[in-house]
C-alpha cells in the first residue's frame, strides 16, 4: 500500500496530543478517563504501525497492543470505581472541587 | 485458465457468490424475521392450546406481513424529553452489527460473504457491539423503566459474553481455527463437534439465549417488571427494527450453533453437482438453523423468567466456572494427546454428566423450599376440594 508509516504515526501523535489536552483541561473526571483512553488508543495505533514497518512479519508491537488492552480495561474499571465512590461522598465529578487531599 | 462452475469466469463466479451470500443474508434476516414471527405465534398458540393467527391469508400466513406493513405505516413518534440523536441512532446500533454478522456465516461450500480467517472473533465482536445500542436506547428515552432495562441488559450481555466466548474457544481449540469454513470442513459426515464437545454446546446455547435477550433471560423487556424495558418509548418501525434485530440475533446464534457443533451445511448429496450441491448445502444449513430457532421458541413457551440476581449468579457462579473447567480440561487433554479427539470427547461427556448431576445439589435449598410450598399448596387444595 502506498500510505507511509509516518502518516499513521502522525495521526496517532495528533490523537495523543488531543488526549493530553483533554486530560489537562476538562473538569469532568469521566471525560478525563475518556481522554486517557484516547491516549492509549494513540499508543495502540503507533505500536501497530511500527510493527508493520519494514515488511516485518512478527507481531511484537501487536502483542504490546494486547497488553495495552488489558491495562486499559483495568484502568477504566478502577478509575470509574474511584470516581463513583468519591461521587458517593460528594455528589460531584468536578476535579477542581475534589481537593480533600490538599496538603 | 481454470473455469468455475458452468464454465463461468472465476472472478464473475466470485462476485456471483458474494451476491448470492448477501441476498441469502438479507433474505434470511427479513423474510426470516417474518417467518419466525409467524412460527412463533403459531407455536406459542399450539403449546398454549390456542389457534393463533388464522384470518389473514391461508392459515393466517399473511398476518405478519400485514403487521409489518402496519408498522411501516405508523407515525414515527418521539417523546419530547428524549435525547434526540441517541434515540434515533439506537436502533441502528443494534441492527447493523446483527446484519453485518451474516457476512461470515458459511451457508454452503463457497456460499459465504467473506471467509475471514478470524470469522468467529468477528462474530463475537459484533455481538458485543449490540450492547452499546441497547444501553443508548435505554438512556436516550429518558425514562426510568427504559434506563433500568438498558442497564440490566448491558450487565447481562457483558456478563454472558464471558461463558459464550469461553465455550467458543473450546471448539476453536479442538478444531484449531477461527475460520468458520474450516470449522465446518473439520466435521464431515456424522462426525460433528457435538459428539466431541457436548458441554460446550450446552453452555454456549444457554449463553446465547441470554445474549439474544430471549426467555428465560428477557429481563431487559420484562413486561411484568419494566413496562417494555428499553423498548418502552419506541414505536413504529424503530421498534420494528429492534424486533427484527432480535430475531436476526436468534438466527445468528442458531447458525453459529449449527456451524460449530452440527456440521454446518454438511448433509447428504452436497457434492453431487457443482450447483445443486451448494443449493442442498444451503437447504441443510437452513433446516438445521431453523430447528434451533424452533428450540428457542419452545424454550420461550416453556420456561419462566429469571430474577435478575438469579440471572447474574447463574452466569458468574455456575456457567463461568463450568466453562473454565471445560476449557482447562480440553486444553490439557489436547496437549497430552494432540490430534486425537477421543479423550477430549470422553472428558467432555463426563463433565457434562457431572455438572448436570451437580445442579440439584447446588440448588438443594431452593428445591427443598419449592417442594415445601408445593406440599402446602396441595394440602390447601385438598382441604379446599373437600366437600363440606
Amino acid at each position, binding site marked *: 500500500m502506498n500510505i507511509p508509516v509516518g502518516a499513521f504515526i502522525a495521526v496517532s501523535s495528533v490523537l495523543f496530543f488531543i488526549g*493530553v489536552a483533554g*486530560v*489537562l483541561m476538562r473538569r469532568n*473526571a469521566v471525560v*478525563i478517563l475518556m481522554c486517557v483512553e484516547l491516549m492509549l488508543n494513540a499508543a495502540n495505533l503507533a505500536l501497530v504501525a511500527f510493527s508493520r514497518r519494514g515488511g516485518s512479519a512478527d507481531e511484537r508491537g501487536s502483542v504490546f497492543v494486547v497488553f495495552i488492552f488489558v491495562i486499559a480495561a483495568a484502568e477504566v474499571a478502577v478509575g470509574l470505581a474511584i470516581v463513583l465512590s468519591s461521587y458517593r461522598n460528594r455528589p460531584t465529578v468536578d*476535579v*477542581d472541587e*475534589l*481537593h*480533600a*487531599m*490538599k*496538603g | 485458465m481454470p473455469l468455475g462452475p458452468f464454465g463461468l469466469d472465476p472472478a464473475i463466479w466470485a462476485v456471483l457468490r458474494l451476491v448470492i451470500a448477501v441476498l441469502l443474508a438479507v433474505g434470511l434476516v427479513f423474510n426470516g424475521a417474518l417467518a419466525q414471527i409467524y412460527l412463533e405465534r403459531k407455536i406459542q398458540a399450539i403449546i398454549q392450546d390456542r389457534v393463533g393467527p388464522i384470518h389473514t391469508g391461508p392459515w393466517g400466513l399473511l398476518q405478519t406481513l400485514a403487521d409489518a406493513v402496519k408498522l411501516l405505516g405508523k407515525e414515527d413518534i418521539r417523546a419530547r424529553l428524549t435525547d434526540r440523536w441517541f434515540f434515533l441512532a439506537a436502533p441502528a446500533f443494534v441492527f447493523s452489527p446483527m446484519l453485518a454478522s451474516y457476512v461470515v456465516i458459511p451457508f454452503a461450500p463457497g456460499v459465504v460473504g467473506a471467509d475471514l480467517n478470524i470469522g468467529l472473533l468477528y462474530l463475537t465482536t459484533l455481538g458485543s457491539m449490540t450492547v452499546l445500542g441497547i444501553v443508548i436506547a435505554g438512556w436516550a428515552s429518558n425514562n426510568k423503566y427504559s434506563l433500568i432495562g438498558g442497564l440490566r441488559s448491558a450487565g447481562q450481555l457483558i456478563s454472558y459474553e464471558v461463558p459464550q466466548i469461553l465455550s467458543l474457544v473450546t471448539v476453536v481449540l479442538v478444531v484449531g481455527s477461527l475460520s468458520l469454513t474450516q470449522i465446518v470442513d473439520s466435521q464431515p459426515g456424522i462426525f460433528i463437534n457435538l459428539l466431541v464437545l457436548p458441554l460446550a454446546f450446552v453452555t454456549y446455547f444457554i449463553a446465547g439465549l441470554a445474549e439474544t435477550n430471549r426467555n428465560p433471560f428477557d429481563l431487559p423487556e420484562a413486561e411484568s417488571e419494566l413496562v417494555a424495558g428499553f423498548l418502552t418509548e419506541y414505536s413504529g418501525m424503530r421498534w420494528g427494527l429492534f424486533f427484527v434485530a432480535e430475531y436476526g440475533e436468534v438466527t445468528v446464534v442458531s447458525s453459529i450453533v449449527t456451524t460449530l457443533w452440527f456440521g454446518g451445511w454438511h448433509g447428504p448429496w452436497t457434492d453431487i453437482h457443482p450447483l445443486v450441491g451448494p443449493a442442498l448445502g444451503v437447504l441443510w444449513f437452513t433446516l438445521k438453523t431453523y430447528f434451533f430457532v424452533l428450540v428457542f421458541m419452545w424454550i420461550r413457551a416453556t420456561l419462566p423468567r429469571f430474577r435478575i440476581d438469579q440471572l447474574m449468579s447463574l452466569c458468574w457462579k455456575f456457567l463461568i466456572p463450568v466453562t473454565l473447567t471445560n476449557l482447562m480440561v480440553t486444553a490439557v487433554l489436547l496437549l497430552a494427546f494432540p490430534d486425537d479427539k477421543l479423550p477430549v470427547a470422553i472428558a467432555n461427556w463426563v463433565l457434562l454428566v457431572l455438572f448436570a448431576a451437580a445442579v440439584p445439589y447446588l440448588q438443594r435449598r431452593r428445591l427443598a423450599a419449592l417442594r415445601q410450598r408445593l406440599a402446602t399448596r396441595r394440602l390447601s387444595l385438598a382441604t379446599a376440594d373437600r366437600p363440606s
Partner: protein
Amino acid sequence: MIQNVWLIPALPLAAFLINGLLGRRWLKHATGWIATGAVAASAFIAIDVFLEVLGGHERTTVTLYRWIGVGDFNINVSALVDPLSSVMLLVVTVVGTLIFIFANGYMAHDHGFARFFTWFSLFVFAMLILVMADNYLLMFVGWEGVGLCSYLLIGFWFERPAPQHAANKAFWMNRIGDWGYTIGMITTFLVFGSMTYTDVFAKVGTVTQANLTLICIAFFVGAAGKSAQLPLHSWLPDAMEGPTPVSALIHAATMVTAGVYLVARSTPLFVAAGPALQVVAVVGAVTAIFAATIALVQMDIKRVMAYSTVSQLGYMFLALGVGAPVAAIFHLATHAFFKALLFLGSGSVIHGLGNEQDMRKMGGLRRKMPVTYWTMLIAGGALAALPPLAGFWSKDEILSGAFLSGQTALWAVGIVTAILTAFYVTRAMWMTFHGEPRDRHLYDHAHESPAVMTLPLVALAVGSATLGLLIGFPPDQGFIHSFLGPAVAVEGAAEHAPELSTLLGLAGVSVAAGIVGIVIGIAMYVRHRPDPAAVTRAAGPIYRLLVNKYYVDELYDHRVLEAARAFFGVLWAFDVHVIDGLANGIGRLAAAGGAGARRLQTGLVGNYALTVVVGLLVVLVAYGGYAAGVFKR
C-alpha cells in the same frame, strides 16, 4: 549406624516445632509425650552411636552441610563423634528422657504445659548441638541456645516477679561468660586461622604460650559463666525459681556441665597453657569449698541442692585443673545421675507437700513417701561419696588425681569439701525425711508422687548406685579410662601409674571424710549434741556470713552495678545528646522541608497530571536538542 547421628538433635527439634506450632491450641497434654518420645528415640540412637564408637570408630566427623565458606575460612555444620561426645550424648539423652518422663507428672496441672515442653525440647536440641559440634562456632550456637532456653525456663512462671529477676540474672551472668567465650573464639580464629577442633589441636605446638593462655582464660571465663564458678556462680541458686525438672535437667545434669565439657574438649589447649590450667584448678577448688559452706546453712531444699551442684562442678574443674579430665567427665556422668535424682526427689517432695520448699516445715516424710525417700537416700549416699555408690568412684578419682599431681593443698581442700558435702547431705535428708513432722498440716496432706514420677527416680537411683562400679572399677584403670583416655589424652602428659597402696590409702581417706561428715551430721541433728541452734549461736557472725552467701549478691548489686551504672550513664548522655541530637536534627530538617514542600500538594489531580506533562516536555526538549545535535561533544 553412625551416619544418622544427626537424627539425635533432629528429633527434639521436630518435637520443638510440632509442640511450638500446634501445642497450645490442639495438642495440649499430648505435647509432653511427643517431646518425651522424641528424646527417648534420640536416646536409643545415642546408645547405638555409643556402641558404634565402642566398636572402634575412634573419631568420626559427620558433615551435614557447609555453613560458612569465605575463602579458606570454612565452617561446616557437622558432628564430631568421638568417645567424649558420645558419652555426653548418652548422658544428655538418657538422663533427659528420665527427667522428661518425670516432668509429665510434675507439670501435669500447670497451665503452661505445652509451652514448657516446647522450650524443654528446644533445650535438648541446643544441648545436643553444643555437644556434637566439631568447631567452636557451632558449639557457640548450642551454647547460646541452651542459655536462651535456661532463661526462658527459669522465667517460666513469669507471672511472679522472683522468676523474672532470676531469669534476668542468669541471662546477664551468662552474657559475661559468653563474652569470654566470644573473645576466646575470635582469638582462636586469629591465632589458628580455624575454629575446627581437629585443626586447632593439630597446631597447638605452633603458637606462643601467651596466646594460648589468653585463649584458655577467655574460654574458662565462658565456662565459669555457664557452669556457675566463682565469681559468676550466684545465678545458679536463684535459677531454682524455675520448675524442678528444669533445675534437674538444665541446672544440675546438662547445661551447667557445658563449661566442664568445653574445658575437657579443649584439654590440649589447656594442657599446653600451664597457667590457665592452674587457674582452672584453683577456681574449681575454691568454688567447691565456697559453695559447700553456703550449702551448710540453707533452709530451702532446692537451694541446698543448687549450692551442692556448684560445689560438685567445682570438683570437676578441679579435676580438669589437675590434669585428670577423664575423672572430670566420669564425675560429670555420675553427678548427672545422682544430682538429677536429688533434684527430682526434692521435686517430688515439693510436689507432695504442695509446693513447700522450706525444710523447716518438713520432717518425717519417709513414712509418707517411701520411694522418694529410698531413692534420695541412695543419691545422697552417692553425693556423700559412700562406696560402692557412683559418687564415690568419681570423686575418689578426682581427689587422687589432685593428690598425685602433687598439689596437696588442693587435695586437702577437696577432702574438707567432702566432709562438708557429707554433712549437708545428712542434714538435708534428716530434716526432710526423719524426725518428727514439724508442720502437722503439711504432713497430713503429704502424699507419694504418682508412678510417672517415681519410676524415673528408681531408674536414676539404679544408675547412681551402680554406674560408678560399672565403668569406674578398678580406680584409674576402669572402663571409662580405657574408653575416654585416648580421646582426651595429650602427648606429654605422663601417664602416671601409681601403686595400689597409694590408691587404697587415698580412697580410705575420702571414705573417712564422708563418714566423718555423716557422723557429725547425725550427731548434730539426731542426738542434738552439739545442738544445731547452739552451734548457730556460737558461730554467729560466720553463720550470718554463710546465710547471706558471703554477701556476694550485695557486692554485685552495690559496687559492681554502681560502677557499671556510672559508665553507662556516660554512654547514655552521649546517646541522648549526640546521636539522638543528630537524629532529631535530621528529623527537624525533614519536617521543615516538608512544611515548605507542602504547598506543592494542591490535592488537585489536574495539577499532578500537568506536572507529568511538564516532565514529558522536558524529555521532548532534551530529545529534540539531542536530535539537533546540541549536546554533541
